[in-house]
């Protein structure tokens, strides 16, 4: 396969054990072991990293400029080349990819973290909504996902039984994921916001993740089988929920097309679908068939550390390529209500 002269690959991935609460740790302390793990895996020290980019949210922490606290963990003195996105770390990875692509660095550290335990996540997430027409009504994240789920059921795209099967498959797969917060047989539970039941919703928890990117020969030196990012793109839906067809995700489809997903089949899909109903939308948008393993890690239904869960999807897809379990994978990340913003990355390993 012909490649651009600045091929970029994921060469290392690490994540924390995701937990309901981490009262004993600061965000930095939660993140440090993850940073140590990717640095150890690549042999890169803090000073060797060309560019660092992170994703997190002040609203989760309840403090302004909260991301500055974790900069101690990457050795930010003397000054380093660093940036931050106030969203999921998948978008930090996109920024790092651009930096490497344009030749401004050969390696990048991308990390993301979120502690949902200090606040009430459903209420906190209402503050990301339109402040004129939505935020004053405090519609929480589960309610908005439930509106989308009802639209899918009305359209005949799914039903409550099919949604329960998605939940059961995800948590069964998560039994093989030592980092998962929710794994194995999990009761589907009562309605949270009808039609969504507890089992259709992601666990609320704290967690962190880190990825190392490298360009060309540096990637080959740092990793036995680099996960080459052959395409990556992100798109956004119209601002107002009532303008959108909630049963579809044209932004995901367009991002996938731009990332080159549809040129060849993928064996693995790591989808950031915090709610079972969102997997239905994403499968349709990404045209995934039965030959693709969807969320073998358990996905966001097994662990959804907000601001890190999207980056983890890229990391999980890359890790499968690293260990030879996948040759061509798609990773998806989302942010905002009802799949508002979507990022799609296609990753490939060298064939023997």
């Amino acid at each position: 396969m012909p490649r651009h002269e600045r091929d970029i690959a994921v060469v290392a991935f690490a994540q924390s054990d995701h937990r309901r609460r981490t009262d004993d740790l600061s965000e930095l302390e939660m993140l440090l072991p993850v940073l140590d793990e990717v640095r150890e895996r690549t042999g890169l020290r803090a000073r060797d990293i060309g560019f660092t980019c992170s994703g997190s949210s002040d609203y989760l922490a309840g403090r302004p400029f909260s991301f500055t606290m974790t900069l101690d963990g990457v050795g930010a003195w003397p000054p380093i080349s660093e940036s931050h996105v106030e969203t999921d770390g998948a978008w930090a990875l996109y920024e790092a990819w651009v930096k490497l692509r344009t030749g401004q660095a050969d390696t990048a550290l991308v990390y993301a973290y979120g502690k949902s335990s200090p606040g009430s996540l459903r209420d906190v997430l209402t503050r990301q909504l339109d402040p004129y027409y939505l935020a004053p009504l405090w519609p929480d994240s589960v309610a908005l996902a439930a509106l989308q789920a009802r639209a899918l059921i009305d359209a005949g795209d799914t039903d409550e039984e099919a949604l329960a099967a998605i939940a059961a498959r995800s948590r069964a797969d998560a039994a093989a994921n030592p980092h998962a917060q929710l794994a194995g047989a999990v009761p589907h539970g009562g309605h949270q916001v009808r039609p969504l039941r507890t089992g259709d919703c992601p666990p609320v928890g704290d967690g962190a993740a880190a990825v190392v990117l490298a360009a060309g020969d540096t990637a080959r030196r740092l990793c036995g089988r680099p996960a080459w990012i052959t395409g990556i793109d992100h798109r956004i839906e119209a601002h107002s929920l009532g303008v959108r067809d909630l049963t579809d995700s044209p932004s995901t489809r367009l991002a996938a097309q731009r990332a080159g997903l549809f040129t060849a089949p993928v064996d693995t899909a790591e989808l950031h679908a915090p709610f079972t109903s969102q997997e239905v939308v994403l499968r349709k948008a990404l045209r995934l068939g039965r030959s693709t393993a969807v969320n073998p890690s358990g996905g966001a239904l097994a662990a959804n550390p907000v601001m890190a869960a999207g980056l983890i999807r890229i990391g999980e897809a890359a890790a499968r390529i690293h260990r030879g379990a996948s040759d061509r994978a798609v990773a998806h990340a989302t942010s905002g209500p009802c799949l508002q913003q979507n990022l799609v990355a296609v990753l490939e390993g060298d064939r023997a």
Partner: protein
Amino acid sequence: MTAAPPPEALRAPLVVEFPFTRSLGPVQSAFLTGLRERVVLGARTSGGTVLVPPAEYDPATAEELRDLVEVAPAGTVTTWAWNDRPRPRQPLATPFAWVLVRLDGADTALLHALDAPGPDAVRTGMRVRIRWAAERTGAITDIACFEPVGPEGPEAPPLHPPAAAPHDGRFPDPVTRIVTEARLDYTHTPGRAQGAHLAALRGRRTVGERCPSCRKVYVPPRGACPTCGVATTDRVVVGPAGTVTTFCIVNIKARNLDIEVPYVYAHIALDGADLPLHGRIGGIPYDQVRMGLRVEPVWTADGRHPDHYRPTGEPDAAYDSYKELV
């Protein structure tokens, strides 16, 4: 100097509360003022689509929208979700349905609450109408909620206007700004390093942490060395005395602060620490504070942290002894 077992995690309530004042453009101003007057306005795109609630731009073409139309206060549910346990500050305190409603004359849907007796009384496609709030200020909450129209609900009003009718968007005394109130409640936990620091302060001791790589002692510790990017774990008691490395004279009285101005705020390098912390200097006239002054902490009455630092009476430290910490 060894890593102590972690004390029980400290915790404290943390309330973040902020009123965001936002200005409205001509479209949002007309829409929200209209709600105050029980008139629902939408914005018509050049393609003829009517957006309710209205935006200032066409979501498909990004073209600016200024063409306002009036739509009916009744419409059709396009999707819904039953909310058994309303959360604080949501529109209704009793169980209700979240709904997206396409008002008659509109092509897009508005999110709000529907007051209905239970989930069996709600379905996609049902007819609903606006229940206006008694007190209206020019906000989305001027719509108290929607209510069913039909056999179960009050008799449907005649649909006026039947379709989108042109409207100039002008009202007396238009609303031009809104305040979006927000309050979020957190329970803050400081984590291992800062937790240990705070616990030690209660015993009137100041502890820092040493970097295993460069051996620097950080206080207050945050758990990592910002130079080496590695975890700091070894706790080190520093001070109690220290040296003023630099300072400033504060002449503006802060709100809720019971300290006479002018006073001195200083960087203080506690003995054994490789990073200065900051604190107020007392027990000496403000204009006699100087770099190199030796100081010690004076604890608050409840002994939870140093209230300020006062001179120890020792000779000043030589500049070379603290120049790396200025």
